[in-house]
């Protein structure tokens, strides 16, 4: 939306002359990356600030209860907790820059390792959910927009309304209960095998059974996480397409006799999806939040579950590590989305 409005201002200025300052994609990316670096710095700083004001002595959290005062003092010294706050901040920032996220207070392992080992599960879940969402939502939205006020539109509208109104943790539980427990269609326990292992098995033994197991286990979490996005994209597609169908170029395309299929898909749907792309980029945050919940419900061994553990234990380094990782993922995905946007919409030059 922000983008759209800014262009309006630019548009009227530029179409008068038919000239446009067109930034090369490279320059555009450099800008976005610089902005991204600023955002990540902001996230790191806020997390550091939160930790600094959070109550409780970290040294106490790190040690078992009843540790001696001397030991506490020693840990404080080692961790640099006696330094002035700005020194701590710069140390911390320095660590982040070189990829040193510190050690978990709880398990004393390297935070990077603890984050990295959990990434695949979360990515598998997020990708599966996104695929579910896109495959269902776009056709649904198109049908809804092109057959307005017909039964299929009402069906899609109702579905999307339910989808955006259902809390996903409850949906997950109900799926477990109905499809897992009562119907017995899907397993409900912790998954025995990850995608990587399953593919490895397939490669080594030629047996796809692990893949099937993996699919069975990921089905419910993916539906749980994907429902909200399916509903959202359906709504976006519908309203975007309805808007787009009212534009003069659609009338002009009809007037030149272009087949309806081409008007609808080659022109309208394409133009509808371009701005939706940006909205979806911003939804990555919601997706990550949803993943935290979904992983908790299904006991899915991903980053979200680890984040909740870290929160419960007030394990700040681990928490920071995960949050910063999420921010980096958010920023990178949005840069990709912007680049995609720029390549799809020839008018893009940055605000």
């Amino acid at each position, binding site marked *: 939306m922000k983008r759209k409005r800014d262009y309006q201002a630019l548009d009227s200025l530029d179409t008068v002359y038919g*000239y446009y*300052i067109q930034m090369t994609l490279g*320059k555009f990316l450099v*800008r976005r990356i610089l902005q991204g670096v600023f955002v990540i710095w902001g996230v790191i700083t806020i997390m550091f600030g939160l930790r600094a004001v959070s109550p409780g002595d970290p040294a106490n959290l790190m040690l078992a209860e009843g540790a001696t005062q001397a030991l506490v003092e020693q840990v404080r010294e080692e961790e640099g907790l006696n330094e002035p706050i700005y020194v701590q901040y710069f140390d911390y920032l320095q660590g982040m820059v070189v990829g040193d996220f510190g050690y978990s207070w709880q398990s004393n392992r390297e935070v990077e390792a603890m984050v990295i080992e959990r990434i695949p599960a979360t990515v598998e879940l997020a990708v599966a959910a996104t695929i579910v969402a896109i495959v269902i939502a776009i056709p649904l939205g198109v049908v809804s927009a092109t057959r307005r006020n017909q039964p299929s539109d009402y069906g899609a509208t109702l579905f999307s309304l339910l989808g955006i109104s259902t809390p996903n943790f409850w949906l997950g539980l109900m799926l477990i209960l109905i499809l897992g427990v009562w119907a017995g269609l899907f397993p409900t326990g912790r998954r025995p095998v990850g995608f990587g292992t399953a593919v490895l098995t397939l490669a080594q033994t030629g047996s796809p059974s692990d893949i099937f197991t993996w699919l069975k286990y990921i089905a419910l979490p993916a539906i749980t996480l994907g429902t909200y996005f399916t509903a959202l994209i359906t709504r976006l597609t519908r309203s975007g397409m309805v808007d787009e169908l009212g534009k003069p170029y659609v009338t002009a395309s009809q007037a030149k006799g272009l087949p309806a299929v081409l008007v609808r898909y080659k022109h309208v749907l394409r133009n509808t999806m371009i701005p939706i792309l940006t909205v979806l980029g911003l939804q990555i945050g919601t997706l990550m939040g949803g993943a935290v919940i979904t992983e908790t419900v299904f006991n899915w061994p991903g980053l979200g579950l680890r984040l909740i553990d870290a929160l419960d234990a007030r394990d700040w380094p681990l928490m920071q590590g995960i949050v910063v990782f999420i921010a980096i993922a958010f920023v990178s995905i949005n840069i990709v989305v912007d680049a995609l946007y720029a390549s799809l919409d020839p008018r893009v030059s940055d605000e």
Partner: protein
Amino acid sequence: MSSGQPLVRVEELQKYFWEQDSILDRLLGAEPVPVRAVDGVSFDIYRGETLGLVGESGCGKSTAGETLLRLQEPTDGHVEFDEHDVYELAGSELTEFRRDAQVVFQDPFSSLDPRMTIGEIVRQPLDVHNVDTVEKRRERVRELLERVGLSADQLDRYPHEFSGGQRQRIGIARALALEPEFLVLDEPTSALDVSVQAQVLNLLDELQAEFDLTYLLISHDLSVIRHICDRVAVMYLGEIVEIGPVEAIFEEPKHPYTEALLESVPRATTDERERDRETISGDVPSPRDPPSGCRFRTRCPKVIPPDDVEIDQEEYRAIMDLRERIERRDISLESVGEDGGFEFVDGAVSETDLPAFVTALKTRVIDRTLAPEHDEVVEEALAELASSNWERAADVLSSRYESVCERRRPELGEESHPAACHLHDDAEESIRR
């Protein structure tokens, strides 16, 4: 009419808009690009007269109007209103200026706040300046509305309940609320239907006489300008190219642009089809990178050839257009000739193909036969293109055909009907000879 001390005096007014100017751009070392909306404009407006500012979209006329009212901060230049520098005003003097100078906008849909009743809209200036008592203000609003031809009972209605013409009247009533001396009318009728436009123009005429107003009328519509203005300034690409009494501008236009503008308007008479029209080709260049010298030279049918070149005017125009395209690299060499064109090896056509290439290219870019001596030069330039030497090609043409119009920016003289054109600059002429 145009006698005595001017009420408004605009001197070398400049207004640039900057692009690529965010912190990040600075960080990346991008040079801010100026859009030269208004570029050194000077004129006077005398008490009681109507000065017309005419030009096409993007020529900067609206920006000039807004900047001289200090709705935008100028990049450079001065505006004196009643002998005070508008941009130096502060405090009570500024307040006074805000009362004395008002504006009426073009868009009757955007110029009234949709969430206010028309009573509130017209009263707002009085509220801001705390004029009189609330009771008196209300009375004044009724008077104003009736004066512009609306019924005072409509006070509590919202703008969307009115037609375009009525809204424009409301806008005029608002502008009159503070009893100003000076009104900027920014395209006041261009969003209106022609029958309604006539009503509004008549109203403006009456009001001027009744309240002793001075108008700056900004419009793209030449017939409106002719109808109400005393003097006219013609703008092109941020500059005033000609200024003078309305009769002189319309009957004896000096600047080729003014002539072209007048020629282009279709007349609503039955002999329009037979009229001999001389229209101009091409588009207005970008104000980001305006042409050097005279800004109209890229389209001017009377662009001046160098003294030592004997050339037909139209041939010269064609060569200048070609040069323009070469400078913009706006010719696709790959597609010259039939069927896939010529083969470029390392960016050049082979020696044997050269004559054929030049001939093919020439038929594409020049649609008339040139006198032999010019033909030769053009072919020389086109031959450079065969090896993708764009700069050399441009050089060939510019060294031979460089016009005074591109070397020197023509000045707008001081007399009563000056035109910024080298054709009309006697002083210029003598220097050149």
